[in-house]
């Protein structure tokens, strides 16, 4: 079975939600829509306090090349423009919308038999951004200088706990397939490959049955970080994205499963991505499962809805995203964005806090590094303040998957130090 170099095998903990069919979560009375919910420049607000909006009304317009439009998830009234922390903790501008409960629609016109340019324009207008987590604007990915010959669809979902893409593949199989075909046409790629981890074989089978013959499904070994872009491209095509380069450099572009679904909905129904599937799990919630959640829904609303009889004090850590790369929350004020794949309420037993001890030089971090780096060398150079040497040792190639910190027997904060190092190198211009 194909895969990439090295990597780790954390327990996948998906069993609790893998069987939970997607359910729609109602919208709260007040939504906070983040205008900076994609990679790149934040969108510029085009509504003012007091304006009424409908589902799909443009509220934020893309600014600059790498940016994406933002649409209102519900109908109602704009009550405020507030700066508040997003899931990453950075304060960004949010549009506060009071939900009138009518859900009047203001979608874009559906397209029939769209040409390549029409799809691209629609992807841009609908503000589709990667829904795997990084939220990179799809339009940018589809218009590189290089020619794209292969489209890769990421159905790997290698983070523990998360099952929303799996459920989407099972329940929305045909729409996903149509979405992939649309993106393939827009990108001009000759081939399309869907990579799915072996533990989701059922989804792979279902997808393979409805796909046209020019789109292949390939099962990959269950291993973290199989879903990392460079590792996925290597596993499926044996092409190596050059250090510091983008997938387009080897003629590839990568798309997430839910992004494909979003493209299908945007083209066929004119509906921008105002709702997404989110896995809610962890010992701190009773009703764990997979839910369609409106973007802009505060985490507090989700928790109150699903907590059930679970002990409130049992929650030790709240994560936006998976346990390997997700962001820990200090409270529940942040809200769902296009890239929110999971909301986890983990107990003490689930987050293994172990004390840090001295590095024993075992090189486990190097032996699991999918980028073939030397995290322990980076750490000691960081401690010595040798930033030029760390850069020369290749720290900027790190994809921050966290495998090194996961395996470290001394529990050294390796990837955390690498993040700090990269930040310092950037700030100091070394």
């Amino acid at each position, binding site marked *: 079975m194909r895969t990439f170099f090295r990597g780790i095998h954390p327990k996948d903990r998906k069993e609790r939600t893998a069987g939970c069919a997607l359910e729609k979560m109602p919208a709260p009375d007040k939504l906070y829509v983040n205008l900076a919910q994609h990679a790149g420049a934040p969108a510029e607000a085009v509504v003012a306090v007091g304006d009424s909006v409908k589902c799909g009304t443009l509220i934020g317009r893309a600014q600059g090349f790498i940016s994406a439009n933002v649409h209102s998830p519900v109908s109602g009234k704009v009550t405020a423009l507030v700066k508040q922390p997003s899931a990453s903790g950075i304060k960004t501008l949010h549009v506060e919308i009071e939900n009138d409960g009518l859900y009047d629609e203001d979608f874009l016109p559906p397209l029939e038999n769209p040409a390549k340019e029409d799809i691209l324009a629609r992807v841009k207008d609908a503000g589709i951004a990667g829904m795997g987590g990084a939220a990179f604007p799809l339009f940018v990915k589809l218009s590189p200088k290089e020619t794209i010959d292969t489209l890769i669809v990421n159905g790997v979902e290698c983070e523990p706990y998360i099952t929303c893409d799996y459920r989407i593949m099972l329940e929305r199989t045909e729409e996903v397939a149509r979405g992939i075909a649309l993106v393939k046409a827009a990108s001009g790629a000759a081939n399309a490959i869907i990579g799915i981890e072996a533990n989701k074989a059922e989804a792979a089978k279902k997808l393979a049955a409805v796909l046209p013959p020019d789109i292949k499904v390939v099962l990959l070994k269950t291993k973290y970080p199989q879903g990392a872009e460079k590792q996925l491209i290597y596993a499926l095509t044996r092409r190596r994205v050059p250090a510091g*380069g983008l997938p387009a450099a080897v003629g590839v572009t990568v798309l997430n499963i839910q992004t494909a679904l979003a493209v299908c909905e945007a083209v066929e129904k004119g509906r921008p991505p105002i709702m997404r599937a989110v896995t809610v799990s962890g010992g701190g919630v009773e009703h764990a499962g997979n839910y369609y959640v409106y973007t802009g829904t505060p985490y507090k609303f989700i928790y109150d809805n699903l907590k059930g009889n679970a002990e409130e004090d049992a929650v030790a*850590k709240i994560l936006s995203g998976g346990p*390997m790369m997700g962001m820990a929350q200090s409270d529940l004020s942040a809200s769902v964005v296009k890239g929110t794949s999971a909301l986890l309420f983990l107990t003490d037993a689930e987050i293994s806090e172990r004390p840090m001890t001295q590095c024993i030089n075992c*090189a486990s971090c190097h032996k699991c590094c999918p980028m*073939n780096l030397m995290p322990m060398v980076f750490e000691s150079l960081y401690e010595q303040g040798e930033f030029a040497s760390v850069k020369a040792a290749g720290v900027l190639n790190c994809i921050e998957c966290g495998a090194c910190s996961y395996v470290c027997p001394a529990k050294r904060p390796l990837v955390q130090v690498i993040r700090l190092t990269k930040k310092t190198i950037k700030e100091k211009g070394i």
Partner: protein
Amino acid sequence: MRKLIVSSSPHITSPKTTRAIMLDVIIALSCPLVASVLIFGFYPLFLALLAAGTAVLTEFLYCKARKKPSTVDDLSAVVTGLILALCLPPVVPFYVPMVGAVFAIAIVKMLFGGIGRNFANPAASGRIFLMLCWPLIMNSFLAPVKLGDGFASLFDNFKYIVTFDIAATTTATTAATPLASLGNADWLKLFLGDIAGSAGEVSAIAILIGCIYLIVRKVIDWKTPLVTVLSAAVFSLAFYQDIEYVLPSLLSGGLLFGAVYMATDYATSPNTAVGTIIYAAGIGMTTMIIRKFGSPAEGMALAIVLMNIATPLLDKYIKPRPFGYRKEKKPKLRKAKEANA
């Protein structure tokens, strides 16, 4: 809701800790330890416990003296003590392993910064130190005790606990190790360990069981023992030019024990795969050179320490290339000259 923990990802870590690794090594070491009891009686077990206890106490007192938190609960001192005792002759006075353990822990390990920072394998260095202190004792190997001689015979060797008088021992009790008479060895005896030699080093089968356990538990890299043994085999063949010598030289004199338990020490072996192969091949080669031209009994320990010293160099010059990294083409000389002009 209580105060939440906020930290940078990842939020889960593997259950494998330093202590868990050391516990695995202790479990693996119990194989040669049991074998040494079956072959030489209870005396080597007593020495092993004495060495491990001294090692732990030394580390504890060192930490106390330096006013640092004690690090003994990572169990690495126990491992050092056990390895040291197992590579000693089965019968030495009680103070020998104690002195060795103090040297290994205080001088080789703790003075250089403790676990992960030592420049050479503490147990191997300890053994070399003891060799220099008591060369006669360290070169006297008793013949195995026979299990068939009755349970009481397993306690026989305790009579040497305080003094081990070489002159008083008759030739009947001391025995030449197979290393000294290569070529005459019985292969099955070598494999089971029914030969004279260091306590933990004689039984190849026990060492191999421990080795397989460590590889399955992913504690050690299979490359180190395999390449060490292969390289030793090649050089043994080259030096003695007799295929009959190859197996005895691999199965005796602590080569296997060292390859599995000492050469694989994390702190003193290279980090990269290529470095590990060079390092292991170097150990096999050096061992055979020392055995051929120097003192046979010390070959393995010296070879390991010599290659330990080469490890920082191997790590400095063999650097892994990041995934997707392409070597930048050097500008051609003529073009560079034109650019300068």
